[in-house]
């Protein structure tokens, strides 16, 4: 009875006017085209990089299994949090409202979107796990048949992960953070005591990674499959208890963000999800007896600390980025890949320290509020993220150097930090999409204006990735002097771009 009602609702919704018969065909066409033009060359380049001798050694080393376990465990912890923002049981806002306001059983109405999300996550996990093992097979380190258990295991792990994701969605912000912290603590324990790995799903996945000294292959895969089935059984209970109002609010936030992003306002889209201050209202952010530069520095520090989880995440991200940059100095052929990844991580983490810069950019578009010029306001708000970001990245790099990376890693981390921090300043003055970018650009493969808009939206991210890769590549090719020259060039270029952009606001 309930299923028949649900089918009728879905049939009516599917027949709505806004859908076109060719929509699905066009989506398939675009996906195929992107896969052919962008994804395939990128995958090929990645596999070529991973089949370099030092990369193969790293992938086949016993430590690779531990890294796999830690990454998988961390992904579970992150998914529990993601569930509070965007869970696997996700409908368009109106449909979420429609189906959760009825007396239809929740597990029934949410079963389909959950199944789709689970399938996508499982396939994605299998795909990601395939990259290193296929590289190992291409490099002759393992037989092709040995690829299957880790890929299948990752698929099963993806199912478990989807249920953790749903748990985060059901629990809501406070309890989901506790779940995430619990998982993170357990991952930390297994990192310190690897003997406990066989007791955890991420440990089973780690045991499936084809390292040179691997001894297990059968039972961890079976354990993951059993865990996946058990998780699916538990998902019925999770879906049945999903809070309807929260589902609708999540869907509304995503629709607002999607609307802002597609209309060329990524800053507004991201602000939809930025945490609001929860603690520290009694902390004095504005000291009235200090030089103005110190007032703004403290104001931005206290402001950032008022979203403590976000602040802690940013600190950890910057520490990891600093350590990764220093570690990249010891990879002779693939250091640039790690350099680019570290720069991107630093850029993302620094966002949590740069609220003042965003506020300064907003103030530009409004009647004069502060008694400072534009340049002065930006400079005052840049001081905290620049100094704190640099200091935290250097601490991370220092840890990596203490653990055996070359001391030049400190200089590389400082260089990458400087370019990333300037890119944040550059990104702070983005403003609305310039209409000229919407002009059609006819090419033999279609209108490329969409690509131009996309590049504009992620320009700072691209600059950061290129700068991070270039600094490390220069270090590999010409040592520290070359890296310094490239970093200085990148920093100067980004600074000029930032000045140009702020002047146009």
């Amino acid at each position, binding site marked *: 009875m309930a299923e028949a009602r649900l089918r009728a609702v879905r049939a009516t919704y599917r027949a709505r006017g806004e859908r076109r018969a060719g929509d699905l065909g066009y989506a398939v066409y675009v996906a195929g085209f992107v896969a052919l033009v962008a994804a395939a060359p990128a995958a090929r380049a990645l596999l070529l990089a991973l089949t370099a001798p030092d990369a193969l050694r790293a992938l086949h080393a016993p430590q690779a299994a531990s890294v796999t376990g830690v990454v998988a465990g961390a992904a579970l912890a992150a998914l529990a949090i993601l569930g509070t923002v965007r869970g696997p049981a996700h409908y368009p806002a109106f449909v979420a409202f429609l189906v959760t306001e009825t007396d239809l059983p929740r597990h029934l109405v949410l079963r389909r979107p959950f199944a789709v999300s689970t399938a996508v996550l499982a396939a994605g996990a299998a795909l990601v796990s395939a990259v290193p093992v296929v590289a190992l097979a291409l490099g002759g380190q393992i037989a092709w048949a040995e690829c299957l258990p880790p890929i299948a295991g990752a698929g099963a792990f993806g199912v478990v992960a989807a249920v953790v994701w749903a748990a985060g969605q059901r629990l809501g912000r406070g309890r989901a953070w506790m779940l995430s912290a619990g998982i993170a603590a357990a991952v930390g324990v297994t990192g310190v005591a690897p003997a406990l790995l066989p007791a955890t799903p991420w440990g089973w996945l780690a045991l499936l990674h084809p390292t040179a000294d691997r001894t297990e292959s059968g039972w961890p895969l079976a354990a993951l499959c059993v865990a996946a089935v058990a998780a699916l059984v538990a998902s019925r209970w999770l879906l049945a208890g999903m809070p309807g109002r929260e589902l609708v609010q999540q869907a509304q936030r995503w629709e607002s963000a999607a609307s802002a992003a597609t209309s060329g306002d990524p800053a507004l889209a991201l602000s939809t999800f930025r945490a609001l201050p929860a603690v520290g209202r009694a902390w004095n*952010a*504005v000291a009235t*007896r200090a030089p*103005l530069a110190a007032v703004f520095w403290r104001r931005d520090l206290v402001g950032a600390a008022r979203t403590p989880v976000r602040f802690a995440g940013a600190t950890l991200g910057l520490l990891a980025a600093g350590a990764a940059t220093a570690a990249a100095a010891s990879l002779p052929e693939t250091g640039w890949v790690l350099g680019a990844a570290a720069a991107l991580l630093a850029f993302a983490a620094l966002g949590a320290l740069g*609220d003042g810069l965003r*506020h300064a950019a907003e*103030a530009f578009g409004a*009647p004069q509020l502060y008694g400072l010029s534009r340049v002065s306001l930006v400079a005052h708000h840049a001081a905290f993220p620049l100094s704190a970001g640099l200091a935290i990245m250097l601490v991370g790099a220092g840890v990596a150097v203490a653990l055996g990376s070359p001391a030049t890693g400190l200089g590389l981390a400082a260089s990458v930090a400087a370019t990333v921090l300037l890119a944040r300043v550059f990104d702070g003055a983005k403003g609305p999409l310039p209409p000229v970018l919407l002009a059609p650009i006819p090419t033999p493969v279609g209108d490329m204006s969409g690509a131009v808009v996309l590049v504009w939206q992620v320009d700072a991210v691209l600059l950061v990735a290129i700068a991070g890769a270039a600094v490390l590549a220069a270090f590999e090719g010409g040592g520290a002097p070359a890296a310094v020259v490239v970093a200085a060039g990148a920093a100067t270029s980004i600074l000029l771009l930032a000045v140009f952009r702020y002047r146009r606001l």
Partner: protein
Amino acid sequence: MLVQADDVSVAVGGITLLAPASVHARAGEVVAIRGGNGSGKTTLLRVIAGAVPATSGSVSVASAPVDQRDAAFRRRVASLIGLPPLARNLTLGEHLRLVGLSWGGSGGESYTRASELLASLDLAALASRFPHELSSGQTQLFALALTLVRPSEVVLLDEPEQRLDADRLALVRDRIRRAAAEGCAVVMATHSDWLAGEVAQRTVTLSPAHG
């Protein structure tokens, strides 16, 4: 004359946003701009604030052309035209103190001015709230406080009565009177007959801006 706008009009793409209008305001004077929806009240304030160029006519503040790039102009003119940018991680009290400091006020002055403004607008109990914790009426009052906390000679207010109950509207009236008593020229667009009657020495009524 602090504010002098003569036969100012604004047209964009052949559409008239503001039919020719004139406004004059002296130091210590409150001028109300009245007119129906779409008559160009906000546009006129934007012109005086230097945010929108006039298509015709002349505008000056303190006998100088309006120019947002001019630091002296920015120091003279404070305006509440739409919600000012709010920092989501600062409390109300901190907002006001920071803005005061940025205009060169001493620590003590900024603190005193912020506290006094919050008290006069019945926001003192909310001083440690974040902006997202305010109701729409409280947000409107706080926006007025942010506008008045900085030094200025000209205050431009666009419908300061929005979303306020009668008691709160009386607080706004008192603050506007006080700004004028301190020597500011206040130009205020309003739909409130009561507020205009209470504070304005003169009223300028805009004709509809059709086509």
